[in-house]
Protein backbone atom coordinates (compact mmCIF):
# COMPACT_ATOMS: atom_id res chain seq x y z
CA UNK A 1 0.00 0.00 0.00
CA UNK A 2 3.01 2.28 0.02
CA UNK A 3 4.07 4.10 -3.09
CA UNK A 4 7.75 4.72 -3.53
CA UNK A 5 10.69 3.12 -1.80
CA UNK A 6 11.93 3.17 1.74
CA UNK A 7 10.09 3.63 5.02
CA UNK A 8 8.18 6.87 5.32
CA UNK A 9 8.87 9.07 8.31
CA UNK A 10 6.76 8.09 11.27
CA UNK A 11 4.99 11.43 11.33
CA UNK A 12 3.58 11.04 7.89
CA UNK A 13 2.47 7.52 8.52
CA UNK A 14 0.62 8.58 11.60
CA UNK A 15 -1.10 11.36 9.79
CA UNK A 16 -2.63 8.98 7.32
CA UNK A 17 -3.99 6.42 9.74
CA UNK A 18 -7.64 6.82 10.56
CA UNK A 19 -9.99 5.00 12.84
CA UNK A 20 -12.44 4.45 10.01
CA UNK A 21 -10.00 2.11 8.34
CA UNK A 22 -10.84 -0.59 10.82
CA UNK A 23 -14.47 -0.87 9.79
CA UNK A 24 -15.92 -2.32 6.67
CA UNK A 25 -18.73 -0.30 5.23
CA UNK A 26 -21.45 -1.56 2.98
CA UNK A 27 -21.38 1.30 0.56
CA UNK A 28 -21.07 5.04 0.72
CA UNK A 29 -24.27 5.75 2.63
CA UNK A 30 -23.29 3.33 5.30
CA UNK A 31 -19.95 5.09 5.68
CA UNK A 32 -21.41 8.57 5.57
CA UNK A 33 -24.06 7.70 8.15
CA UNK A 34 -21.38 6.31 10.36
CA UNK A 35 -19.24 9.40 10.04
CA UNK A 36 -22.08 11.76 10.76
CA UNK A 37 -23.89 9.83 13.45
CA UNK A 38 -21.06 8.03 15.20
CA UNK A 39 -21.02 8.06 18.95
CA UNK A 40 -24.19 10.10 19.00
CA UNK A 41 -21.98 13.14 18.90
CA UNK A 42 -23.14 16.51 19.99
CA UNK A 43 -24.98 17.92 17.02
CA UNK A 44 -23.06 21.14 17.12
CA UNK A 45 -19.71 19.49 17.05
CA UNK A 46 -20.19 17.81 13.74
CA UNK A 47 -17.90 19.37 11.24
CA UNK A 48 -18.20 18.98 7.55
CA UNK A 49 -14.46 19.00 7.17
CA UNK A 50 -14.15 16.13 9.62
CA UNK A 51 -16.67 14.17 7.63
CA UNK A 52 -15.04 14.92 4.32
CA UNK A 53 -11.64 13.95 5.71
CA UNK A 54 -13.03 10.73 7.10
CA UNK A 55 -14.75 9.91 3.86
CA UNK A 56 -11.65 10.55 1.80
CA UNK A 57 -9.57 8.62 4.26
CA UNK A 58 -11.88 5.68 3.91
CA UNK A 59 -11.62 5.96 0.14
CA UNK A 60 -7.89 5.54 0.60
CA UNK A 61 -8.54 2.35 2.51
CA UNK A 62 -10.78 0.94 -0.18
CA UNK A 63 -8.06 0.09 -2.56
CA UNK A 64 -8.46 -3.44 -3.70
CA UNK A 65 -11.25 -5.45 -5.17
CA UNK A 66 -13.72 -2.64 -5.53
CA UNK A 67 -16.11 -2.92 -8.37
CA UNK A 68 -16.44 0.00 -10.70
CA UNK A 69 -20.00 0.73 -9.73
CA UNK A 70 -19.18 1.00 -6.05
CA UNK A 71 -16.09 3.11 -6.59
CA UNK A 72 -18.01 5.49 -8.79
CA UNK A 73 -20.73 5.92 -6.21
CA UNK A 74 -18.11 6.65 -3.57
CA UNK A 75 -16.36 9.12 -5.84
CA UNK A 76 -19.51 10.99 -6.75
CA UNK A 77 -20.39 11.37 -3.09
CA UNK A 78 -16.83 12.38 -2.25
CA UNK A 79 -16.96 14.99 -4.97
CA UNK A 80 -20.23 16.37 -3.65
CA UNK A 81 -18.81 16.52 -0.14
CA UNK A 82 -15.66 18.20 -1.32
CA UNK A 83 -17.72 20.71 -3.26
CA UNK A 84 -19.78 21.43 -0.17
CA UNK A 85 -16.69 21.76 1.96
CA UNK A 86 -14.99 24.11 -0.47
CA UNK A 87 -18.11 26.26 -0.54
CA UNK A 88 -18.24 26.38 3.20
CA UNK A 89 -14.59 27.24 3.62
CA UNK A 90 -15.01 30.18 1.34
CA UNK A 91 -18.05 32.18 2.31
CA UNK A 92 -18.28 35.63 0.93
CA UNK A 93 -19.82 37.89 -1.67
CA UNK A 94 -22.02 35.95 -3.94
CA UNK A 95 -20.68 36.71 -7.33
CA UNK A 96 -20.74 33.08 -8.23
CA UNK A 97 -22.91 31.59 -10.81
CA UNK A 98 -26.37 31.25 -9.30
CA UNK A 99 -26.98 28.13 -11.35
CA UNK A 100 -23.90 26.51 -9.98
CA UNK A 101 -24.89 27.36 -6.43
CA UNK A 102 -28.38 25.99 -6.94
CA UNK A 103 -27.03 22.83 -8.49
CA UNK A 104 -24.82 22.31 -5.49
CA UNK A 105 -27.70 22.75 -3.06
CA UNK A 106 -29.74 20.34 -5.13
CA UNK A 107 -26.96 17.79 -4.92
CA UNK A 108 -26.74 18.25 -1.21
CA UNK A 109 -30.48 17.86 -0.73
CA UNK A 110 -30.41 14.75 -2.85
CA UNK A 111 -27.60 13.33 -0.78
CA UNK A 112 -29.49 14.21 2.39
CA UNK A 113 -32.66 12.53 1.12
CA UNK A 114 -30.73 9.38 0.22
CA UNK A 115 -29.04 9.32 3.61
CA UNK A 116 -32.40 9.58 5.36
CA UNK A 117 -33.74 6.78 3.17
CA UNK A 118 -30.72 4.59 3.89
CA UNK A 119 -31.11 5.17 7.63
CA UNK A 120 -34.85 4.42 7.45
CA UNK A 121 -34.33 1.03 5.83
CA UNK A 122 -31.43 0.17 8.07
CA UNK A 123 -33.65 0.72 11.11
CA UNK A 124 -36.51 -1.17 9.45
CA UNK A 125 -34.08 -4.06 8.90
CA UNK A 126 -33.21 -4.04 12.59
CA UNK A 127 -36.90 -4.11 13.47
CA UNK A 128 -37.38 -7.09 11.16
CA UNK A 129 -34.61 -8.91 12.94
CA UNK A 130 -36.19 -8.20 16.32
CA UNK A 131 -39.50 -9.58 15.08
CA UNK A 132 -37.75 -12.67 13.74
CA UNK A 133 -35.90 -13.14 17.01
CA UNK A 134 -39.11 -12.92 19.02
CA UNK A 135 -40.86 -15.30 16.62
CA UNK A 136 -37.98 -17.78 16.78
CA UNK A 137 -38.91 -18.54 20.37
CA UNK A 138 -41.86 -20.49 19.03
CA UNK A 139 -41.38 -23.42 16.68
CA UNK A 140 -44.17 -24.60 14.40
CA UNK A 141 -45.59 -28.09 14.35
CA UNK A 142 -44.37 -29.81 11.20
CA UNK A 143 -44.91 -33.48 12.02
CA UNK A 144 -47.35 -33.83 9.14
CA UNK A 145 -49.67 -36.71 8.36
CA UNK A 146 -49.81 -39.79 10.51
CA UNK A 147 -48.90 -43.01 8.72
CA UNK A 148 -52.45 -44.20 8.42
CA UNK A 149 -53.31 -41.23 6.22
CA UNK A 150 -50.27 -41.48 3.98
CA UNK A 151 -51.78 -44.24 1.87
CA UNK A 152 -54.67 -41.90 1.15
CA UNK A 153 -52.44 -39.09 0.04
CA UNK A 154 -52.30 -38.82 -3.72
CA UNK A 155 -49.16 -40.32 -5.25
CA UNK A 156 -47.29 -37.19 -6.17
CA UNK A 157 -45.18 -39.12 -8.65
CA UNK A 158 -48.16 -40.45 -10.59
CA UNK A 159 -47.57 -39.86 -14.28
CA UNK A 160 -43.99 -38.72 -13.80
CA UNK A 161 -41.41 -40.59 -15.88
CA UNK A 162 -37.63 -40.80 -15.54
CA UNK A 163 -37.49 -38.55 -18.60
CA UNK A 164 -39.51 -35.88 -16.75
CA UNK A 165 -37.10 -36.08 -13.87
CA UNK A 166 -34.16 -35.73 -16.22
CA UNK A 167 -35.80 -32.75 -17.93
CA UNK A 168 -36.29 -31.09 -14.54
CA UNK A 169 -32.62 -31.65 -13.74
CA UNK A 170 -31.56 -30.07 -17.03
CA UNK A 171 -33.91 -27.15 -16.43
CA UNK A 172 -32.44 -26.36 -13.07
CA UNK A 173 -28.80 -26.88 -14.01
CA UNK A 174 -28.63 -25.35 -17.46
CA UNK A 175 -26.77 -22.10 -17.30
CA UNK A 176 -28.97 -19.03 -17.18
CA UNK A 177 -29.11 -16.99 -20.37
CA UNK A 178 -26.31 -14.43 -20.35
CA UNK A 179 -27.38 -11.10 -18.91
CA UNK A 180 -27.94 -8.34 -21.46
CA UNK A 181 -24.73 -6.47 -22.12
CA UNK A 182 -24.48 -2.77 -22.61
CA UNK A 183 -22.00 -2.11 -25.37
CA UNK A 184 -19.59 0.51 -24.15
CA UNK A 185 -17.02 0.27 -26.91
CA UNK A 186 -17.95 3.69 -28.23
CA UNK A 187 -17.32 5.33 -24.88
CA UNK A 188 -13.74 6.33 -24.29
CA UNK A 189 -12.49 4.51 -21.22
CA UNK A 190 -11.72 6.76 -18.28
CA UNK A 191 -8.39 5.90 -16.79
CA UNK A 192 -7.69 8.06 -13.81
CA UNK A 193 -6.34 7.18 -10.46
CA UNK A 194 -5.73 9.33 -7.44
CA UNK A 195 -2.43 7.54 -6.95
CA UNK A 196 -1.21 8.53 -10.39
CA UNK A 197 -2.45 12.07 -9.94
CA UNK A 198 -0.54 12.24 -6.65
CA UNK A 199 2.60 10.89 -8.31
CA UNK A 200 2.28 13.49 -11.01
CA UNK A 201 1.87 16.29 -8.49
CA UNK A 202 4.78 15.07 -6.40
CA UNK A 203 6.91 15.17 -9.53
CA UNK A 204 5.78 18.60 -10.64
CA UNK A 205 5.23 20.67 -7.52
CA UNK A 206 8.56 20.72 -5.63
CA UNK A 207 10.52 23.64 -6.95
CA UNK A 208 7.67 24.87 -9.11
CA UNK A 209 6.69 27.62 -6.70
CA UNK A 210 3.09 28.74 -6.62
CA UNK A 211 0.87 26.90 -9.07
CA UNK A 212 -2.85 27.39 -9.62
CA UNK A 213 -5.21 24.48 -9.58
CA UNK A 214 -6.37 25.70 -12.96
CA UNK A 215 -2.86 25.28 -14.30
CA UNK A 216 -2.62 21.82 -12.77
CA UNK A 217 -5.76 20.72 -14.56
CA UNK A 218 -5.01 22.37 -17.85
CA UNK A 219 -6.00 20.33 -20.83
CA UNK A 220 -8.33 18.09 -18.88
CA UNK A 221 -11.68 17.62 -20.51
CA UNK A 222 -13.18 14.94 -18.40
CA UNK A 223 -14.91 16.06 -15.21
CA UNK A 224 -13.82 12.88 -13.45
CA UNK A 225 -10.18 13.66 -14.18
CA UNK A 226 -10.54 17.07 -12.53
CA UNK A 227 -12.26 15.55 -9.52
CA UNK A 228 -9.51 13.00 -9.13
CA UNK A 229 -6.88 15.72 -9.43
CA UNK A 230 -8.67 17.65 -6.72
CA UNK A 231 -8.75 14.58 -4.48
CA UNK A 232 -5.01 14.22 -5.05
CA UNK A 233 -4.45 17.84 -4.03
CA UNK A 234 -6.50 17.32 -0.88
CA UNK A 235 -4.54 14.17 -0.14
CA UNK A 236 -1.23 16.03 -0.29
CA UNK A 237 -2.65 18.88 1.77
CA UNK A 238 -3.85 16.42 4.39
CA UNK A 239 -0.34 15.06 4.63
CA UNK A 240 1.09 18.52 5.08
CA UNK A 241 3.10 18.36 1.87
CA UNK A 242 1.46 21.34 0.23
CA UNK A 243 -0.14 24.62 1.25
CA UNK A 244 -3.35 25.85 -0.28
CA UNK A 245 -4.26 29.47 -0.73
CA UNK A 246 -6.76 31.63 -2.46
CA UNK A 247 -6.09 35.31 -3.08
CA UNK A 248 -9.71 36.24 -3.60
CA UNK A 249 -12.89 34.42 -2.81
CA UNK A 250 -13.70 32.04 -5.60
CA UNK A 251 -10.46 33.01 -7.20
CA UNK A 252 -7.98 30.45 -8.37
CA UNK A 253 -6.89 27.88 -5.84
CA UNK A 254 -3.13 28.21 -5.35
CA UNK A 255 -0.97 25.25 -4.55
CA UNK A 256 2.57 25.38 -3.23
CA UNK A 257 4.93 22.62 -2.13
CA UNK A 258 6.04 22.86 1.49
CA UNK A 259 7.00 19.26 2.14
CA UNK A 260 10.48 17.96 2.73
CA UNK A 261 11.67 17.21 -0.79
CA UNK A 262 13.05 13.87 0.39
CA UNK A 263 9.95 12.76 2.19
CA UNK A 264 8.46 9.73 0.62
CA UNK A 265 4.81 9.94 -0.08
CA UNK A 266 2.76 7.26 1.56
CA UNK A 267 -0.76 6.22 1.27
CA UNK A 268 -2.63 6.42 -1.98
CA UNK A 269 -3.20 3.46 -4.15
CA UNK A 270 -4.89 3.54 -7.44
CA UNK A 271 -8.57 3.23 -7.97
CA UNK A 272 -8.75 2.93 -11.66
CA UNK A 273 -12.03 4.03 -13.00
Amino acid at each position, binding site marked *: MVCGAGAPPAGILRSVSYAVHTEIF*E*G*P*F*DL*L*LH*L*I*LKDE*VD*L*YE*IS*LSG*IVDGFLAHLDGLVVALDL*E*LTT*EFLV*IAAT*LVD*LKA*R*RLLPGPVDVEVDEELAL*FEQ*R*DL*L*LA*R*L*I*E*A*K*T*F*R*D*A*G*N*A*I*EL*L*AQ*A*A*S*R*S*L*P*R*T*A*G*LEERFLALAPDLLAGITPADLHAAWLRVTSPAPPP*PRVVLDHVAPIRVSVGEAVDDLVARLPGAGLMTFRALTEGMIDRMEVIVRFLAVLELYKQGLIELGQAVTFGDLEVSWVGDPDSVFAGVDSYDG
Partner: protein
Amino acid sequence: MGGGVASEAARAAEAILMVADEPVEPQLLAQLLEVSPSRVEELCDELAATYESEDRGFVLARVAGGWRFQSHPDLAPYVERFVLDGQPSRLSPAALETLAIVAYKQPVSRAQVAVIRGVNADAVVRTLCQRGYVEEVGRDPGPGQAVLYGTSRLFLERLGVDSLADLPPLGDFVPGPEVVEALERGLGADDT
Protein backbone atom coordinates in the same frame (compact mmCIF):
# COMPACT_ATOMS: atom_id res chain seq x y z
CA MET B 1 -66.24 -25.14 24.07
CA GLY B 2 -69.98 -25.16 23.49
CA GLY B 3 -72.00 -28.30 22.88
CA GLY B 4 -72.91 -30.22 19.77
CA VAL B 5 -72.07 -28.79 16.40
CA ALA B 6 -69.62 -26.13 17.57
CA SER B 7 -67.74 -28.73 19.48
CA GLU B 8 -67.51 -31.11 16.53
CA ALA B 9 -66.18 -28.36 14.26
CA ALA B 10 -63.70 -27.21 16.89
CA ARG B 11 -62.49 -30.76 17.43
CA ALA B 12 -62.14 -31.30 13.69
CA ALA B 13 -60.15 -28.07 13.42
CA GLU B 14 -57.81 -29.29 16.17
CA ALA B 15 -57.35 -32.62 14.41
CA ILE B 16 -56.58 -31.07 11.03
CA LEU B 17 -54.23 -28.47 12.44
CA MET B 18 -52.38 -31.24 14.28
CA VAL B 19 -51.47 -33.03 11.01
CA ALA B 20 -50.87 -29.90 8.92
CA ASP B 21 -47.25 -28.98 8.30
CA GLU B 22 -47.88 -25.36 7.40
CA PRO B 23 -50.41 -22.71 8.38
CA VAL B 24 -53.91 -23.70 7.24
CA GLU B 25 -55.98 -20.97 5.61
CA PRO B 26 -59.38 -20.30 7.18
CA GLN B 27 -61.04 -20.76 3.78
CA LEU B 28 -59.74 -24.32 3.53
CA LEU B 29 -60.78 -25.10 7.10
CA ALA B 30 -64.21 -23.64 6.40
CA GLN B 31 -64.60 -25.89 3.37
CA LEU B 32 -63.48 -29.00 5.25
CA LEU B 33 -65.59 -28.28 8.33
CA GLU B 34 -68.57 -27.03 6.33
CA VAL B 35 -68.89 -23.81 8.27
CA SER B 36 -68.33 -20.21 7.20
CA PRO B 37 -64.81 -18.71 7.20
CA SER B 38 -65.88 -16.23 9.86
CA ARG B 39 -67.04 -19.14 12.02
CA VAL B 40 -63.62 -20.69 11.55
CA GLU B 41 -61.99 -17.52 12.82
CA GLU B 42 -64.26 -17.56 15.87
CA LEU B 43 -63.53 -21.22 16.54
CA CYS B 44 -59.79 -20.75 16.26
CA ASP B 45 -59.84 -17.62 18.39
CA GLU B 46 -61.75 -19.57 21.04
CA LEU B 47 -59.36 -22.50 20.89
CA ALA B 48 -56.36 -20.19 21.15
CA ALA B 49 -57.94 -18.47 24.16
CA THR B 50 -58.67 -21.82 25.80
CA TYR B 51 -55.07 -23.02 25.46
CA GLU B 52 -53.87 -19.74 26.86
CA SER B 53 -56.19 -19.78 29.84
CA GLU B 54 -55.23 -23.38 30.54
CA ASP B 55 -51.60 -22.37 30.45
CA ARG B 56 -50.71 -24.96 27.80
CA GLY B 57 -47.17 -25.36 26.50
CA PHE B 58 -48.38 -24.76 22.95
CA VAL B 59 -50.33 -21.99 21.27
CA LEU B 60 -52.61 -21.75 18.27
CA ALA B 61 -51.25 -18.82 16.27
CA ARG B 62 -52.37 -16.81 13.28
CA VAL B 63 -49.33 -16.72 10.99
CA ALA B 64 -48.80 -16.02 7.29
CA GLY B 65 -52.50 -16.05 6.49
CA GLY B 66 -53.40 -19.23 8.34
CA TRP B 67 -53.60 -21.02 11.67
CA ARG B 68 -50.93 -23.29 13.08
CA PHE B 69 -49.91 -24.98 16.31
CA GLN B 70 -46.57 -23.86 17.67
CA SER B 71 -44.65 -24.11 20.92
CA HIS B 72 -45.18 -21.45 23.58
CA PRO B 73 -42.39 -18.84 23.47
CA ASP B 74 -41.89 -19.21 27.24
CA LEU B 75 -40.60 -22.71 26.70
CA ALA B 76 -37.97 -21.82 24.12
CA PRO B 77 -35.12 -23.00 26.37
CA TYR B 78 -36.52 -26.55 26.46
CA VAL B 79 -37.44 -26.63 22.79
CA GLU B 80 -34.03 -25.34 21.74
CA ARG B 81 -32.36 -28.14 23.64
CA PHE B 82 -34.57 -30.64 21.88
CA VAL B 83 -34.20 -29.35 18.33
CA LEU B 84 -30.85 -30.43 16.94
CA ASP B 85 -30.96 -28.56 13.67
CA GLY B 86 -30.57 -25.25 15.39
CA GLN B 87 -31.95 -21.97 14.25
CA PRO B 88 -31.20 -20.62 10.80
CA SER B 89 -28.09 -18.49 10.94
CA ARG B 90 -28.55 -14.78 11.33
CA LEU B 91 -28.65 -12.39 8.42
CA SER B 92 -25.95 -9.80 7.94
CA PRO B 93 -26.87 -6.12 8.37
CA ALA B 94 -26.68 -5.71 4.59
CA ALA B 95 -29.09 -8.61 4.07
CA LEU B 96 -31.48 -7.23 6.70
CA GLU B 97 -31.48 -3.80 5.12
CA THR B 98 -32.14 -5.34 1.70
CA LEU B 99 -34.89 -7.50 3.15
CA ALA B 100 -36.49 -4.37 4.60
CA ILE B 101 -36.34 -2.63 1.23
CA VAL B 102 -37.97 -5.60 -0.49
CA ALA B 103 -40.59 -5.93 2.25
CA TYR B 104 -41.67 -2.32 2.14
CA LYS B 105 -41.14 -1.52 -1.55
CA GLN B 106 -42.31 -4.73 -3.20
CA PRO B 107 -42.50 -5.49 -6.01
CA VAL B 108 -39.02 -4.12 -6.51
CA SER B 109 -36.13 -4.83 -8.88
CA ARG B 110 -32.51 -5.41 -7.88
CA ALA B 111 -31.60 -2.15 -9.56
CA GLN B 112 -34.08 -0.27 -7.38
CA VAL B 113 -32.64 -1.91 -4.29
CA ALA B 114 -29.15 -0.94 -5.43
CA VAL B 115 -30.17 2.70 -5.86
CA ILE B 116 -31.47 2.88 -2.31
CA ARG B 117 -28.48 1.10 -0.81
CA GLY B 118 -25.84 2.74 -2.96
CA VAL B 119 -24.24 -0.63 -3.67
CA ASN B 120 -24.86 -3.52 -5.99
CA ALA B 121 -27.56 -5.78 -4.56
CA ASP B 122 -27.25 -8.93 -6.68
CA ALA B 123 -25.40 -11.12 -4.19
CA VAL B 124 -27.56 -10.12 -1.25
CA VAL B 125 -30.79 -10.68 -3.17
CA ARG B 126 -29.50 -14.09 -4.25
CA THR B 127 -28.80 -15.01 -0.64
CA LEU B 128 -32.27 -13.91 0.42
CA CYS B 129 -33.78 -16.04 -2.37
CA GLN B 130 -31.76 -19.06 -1.26
CA ARG B 131 -32.96 -18.54 2.27
CA GLY B 132 -36.47 -18.40 0.89
CA TYR B 133 -37.35 -15.02 2.39
CA VAL B 134 -37.56 -13.31 -0.99
CA GLU B 135 -38.85 -14.62 -4.29
CA GLU B 136 -39.49 -13.51 -7.83
CA VAL B 137 -42.97 -12.11 -8.10
CA GLY B 138 -43.02 -10.81 -11.65
CA ARG B 139 -41.35 -8.81 -14.37
CA ASP B 140 -41.18 -5.11 -14.87
CA PRO B 141 -43.39 -4.30 -17.85
CA GLY B 142 -40.95 -1.60 -19.00
CA PRO B 143 -37.96 -2.09 -21.27
CA GLY B 144 -35.48 -4.64 -19.97
CA GLN B 145 -38.23 -6.51 -18.13
CA ALA B 146 -36.29 -6.57 -14.89
CA VAL B 147 -37.20 -9.34 -12.46
CA LEU B 148 -39.29 -7.99 -9.61
CA TYR B 149 -38.93 -9.38 -6.11
CA GLY B 150 -41.24 -9.61 -3.13
CA THR B 151 -41.20 -11.30 0.26
CA SER B 152 -42.38 -14.90 0.58
CA ARG B 153 -44.76 -16.70 2.85
CA LEU B 154 -41.75 -18.14 4.66
CA PHE B 155 -40.73 -14.56 5.47
CA LEU B 156 -44.07 -13.99 7.20
CA GLU B 157 -43.76 -17.32 9.00
CA ARG B 158 -40.27 -16.51 10.25
CA LEU B 159 -41.44 -13.13 11.50
CA GLY B 160 -44.51 -14.67 13.09
CA VAL B 161 -46.83 -12.15 11.45
CA ASP B 162 -50.08 -12.80 9.65
CA SER B 163 -49.58 -10.50 6.68
CA LEU B 164 -47.46 -7.63 5.42
CA ALA B 165 -50.02 -5.27 6.90
CA ASP B 166 -48.85 -6.44 10.32
CA LEU B 167 -45.34 -5.13 9.83
CA PRO B 168 -44.72 -1.86 11.65
CA PRO B 169 -45.35 1.05 9.29
CA LEU B 170 -42.24 2.27 7.50
CA GLY B 171 -42.96 5.74 8.86
CA ASP B 172 -41.94 4.45 12.28
CA PHE B 173 -38.36 4.21 11.04
CA VAL B 174 -37.96 7.57 9.37
CA PRO B 175 -35.30 9.23 11.49
CA GLY B 176 -36.51 11.74 14.05
CA PRO B 177 -35.77 15.45 13.91
CA GLU B 178 -32.55 15.17 15.91
CA VAL B 179 -31.08 12.68 13.47
CA VAL B 180 -32.23 14.63 10.44
CA GLU B 181 -30.75 17.75 11.99
CA ALA B 182 -27.49 15.92 12.54
CA LEU B 183 -27.46 14.76 8.94
CA GLU B 184 -28.23 18.24 7.68
CA ARG B 185 -25.56 19.70 9.86
CA GLY B 186 -23.15 17.00 8.78
CA LEU B 187 -23.66 18.05 5.20
CA GLY B 188 -23.35 21.69 6.05
CA ALA B 189 -26.96 22.40 5.27
CA ASP B 190 -27.35 24.90 8.07
CA ASP B 191 -25.27 27.67 6.63
CA THR B 192 -27.22 28.23 3.48
